């Protein structure tokens, strides 16, 4: 997504028990939540926000299978075709003896692949700079950012957030990098999800 300047209404909550109904009400009112930043994984928040499940584990499976086939085909090629060695008169195609390495490479490929994919999807890398809506989002606050469109009346949105229990509400202008707004498409609207 192209960069640009965007306006966000940001509400900070200090209790996840208040956050959940707030997320529901904000979505019900038709606002689109850009993201919620939390200091720890809050279980069920992704569902409450209408995010789809991640398929990272499927990617992990595919990487693992790649590792298995790489190990097996490579060892087979080396010991039966490229340079067959007579090791104690044992068969060249020594499958049982290759299980340990096959297993290790399966795990290695799956783990490395998954971590790299995770970093790629979440845009995590050593020198990446991102807009942080609240410094305490990694400490003790649950920070909800709502993206404003031309039609949004941010004054009423702010008071709406306050009514849902937000402790701090403000408006922030953030330069959207290539990471912002990535999840727009995968977040369902509340009325679509509930079927009305």
């Amino acid at each position, binding site marked *: 997504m192209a960069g640009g300047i965007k306006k966000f209404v940001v509400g900070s909550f200090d*209790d*996840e*028990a208040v956050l959940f109904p707030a997320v529901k009400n904000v979505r019900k009112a038709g606002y689109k939540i850009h*993201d*919620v*930043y*939390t*200091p*720890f*994984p*809050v*279980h069920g*928040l*992704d569902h409450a926000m209408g*995010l789809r*499940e*991640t398929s*990272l584990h499927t990617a*992990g499976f595919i990487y*693992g299978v790649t590792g298995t086939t790489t190990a097996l085909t*490579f*060892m087979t090629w*080396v*010991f039966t075709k*490229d*340079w067959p*060695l007579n*090791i104690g008169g*044992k068969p060249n195609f*020594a499958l049982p*003896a290759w299980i*340990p*390495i096959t*297993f*290790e490479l399966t*795990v290695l490929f*799956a*783990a*490395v692949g*998954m*971590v790299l994919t*995770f*970093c790629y999807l*979440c*845009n*995590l*890398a*050593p020198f*990446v*700079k*991102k807009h*942080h809506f609240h*410094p*305490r*989002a*990694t*400490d*003790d606050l649950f*920070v909800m950012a709502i993206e404003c469109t031309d039609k949004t009346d941010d004054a009423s949105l702010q008071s709406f957030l306050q009514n849902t229990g937000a402790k701090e509400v403000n408006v922030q202008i953030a330069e959207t990098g290539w990471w912002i707004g990535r*999840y727009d498409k995968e977040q369902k609207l509340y009325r679509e999800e509930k079927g009305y």
Partner: protein
Amino acid sequence: MSLLKYESQQREPLVDGNKDYHQITEDIIGPIEMKPSRLWYIGFYISVALLMFGVYSIYREVTYGIGQWNLNKTIGWGWDITNFVWWVGIGHAGTLISAILLLFRQGWRTGVNRAAEAMTIFAVMCAGQFPIWHMGRVWMAFFVLPYPNSRGPLWVNFNSPLLWDVFAISTYFTVSLLFWYSGLLPDFATVRDRAKTKFRKMMYGVAAFGWTGSTKHWQRHESLSLVLAGLSTPLVLSVHTIVSFDFATSVIPGWHTTIFPPYFVAGAIFSGFAMVQTLLIVVRKVMNLQDYITLGHIEAMNKVIVLTGSIVGCAYLTELFIAWYGQNPYEWYAFSQNRANIFTPYGWSYWLMMFCNVVSPQLFWSRKLRRNITVTFFMSIIVNIGMWYERFVIIVTSVYRDFLPSSWSTYYSPSIWEIGFYLGTFGLFFTCFFLFAKYFPVIAVSEIKAILKTSGENYKAKMTDIEKSDAEKFYIEKVEHAH
């Protein structure tokens, strides 16, 4: 306030004291922001000194050759491989805590997993030194890698347990490191966002990879942790299995047994937990983390120690029995003479091992002793000594009397440079651990926050009040609705 989760009152709280989310951050991140204490400097310099001695010992070994070690005709492996197996074993507890206990949903792992995983990584680094420097011509160490080369290409032997080791140890190190670091990202972000100085903000900013705490990122992070735990669980079992194959696939009496893989894995977890106890008892005291690493945590680990210690004890007796029952004269000689006979040259080491690993952990059947810090600390040292001797017994007593009795006379004891190398790995381990304790969050801050409202002492107290008021009403209103 509605409750999100409910946990039985029978369970001990995992976080003591009156904590909220911010207090947890203060308690765990606070020490990172302070100047290190005098004790820290003393410990750190001692570790660096040991490391330097190790470096010099290795320098001697590389310059003058393996002859610097007192290995002889029958004992081609002595202290070095003993130390290798010992260090790898130490590492296993970290993965058990971080991966297996995650799959078993043991909440108490959150207090200790970060430090235990760090221990794993440093222990594997130490372990790796021994086979590498034992190669003698260490500049050719890369020959163990299967890369296209100008010698044919002549490939490595994929059927050899020593090559399996190369793959097992390097995979284990890589996966542990990734698992550990992915867990550290959110905590580094916490340090970054609290930083008062520009330098700290920059350093932790780089380390945190730009973590924001976005819900989608957390969702993926959870998925990643779960799958990495699922991968690490068979991995950790495979690593010591493969290490045991180094011995078990040979035809040396005392090594050629099928019991080795499970016996080695149990022993590894046993010694690893002892090392975790040694480290954490000091860390919780020095860094004032008694609220997070509680007596309950120590007791839980002692339970693992008595369990795995007993498994190891069963394995010792089983291999002794099978050596007799199998009626192989060489096998029985190795066990009845070289090991169990206390009057043979190395008989003492077998009985020392038996005492440290089988007899002494039985103390932990007593709840009172399990919850005693002093007893636990001494026991952890005894278990570590015992487990070192286990490897020494397996290696040295099997090879010091080979099939040619004329070469039996030489008694193996290590040279100063062999000992120096071992001390050097202690230096490496503790240098890394001191740096870790100073600059890294030693407890997984975000994971502790996630369990606070179910297992925090203050939150459990609130639940008790509600429970007392009306059990049935409590169930309907709080528990059913929570799900």
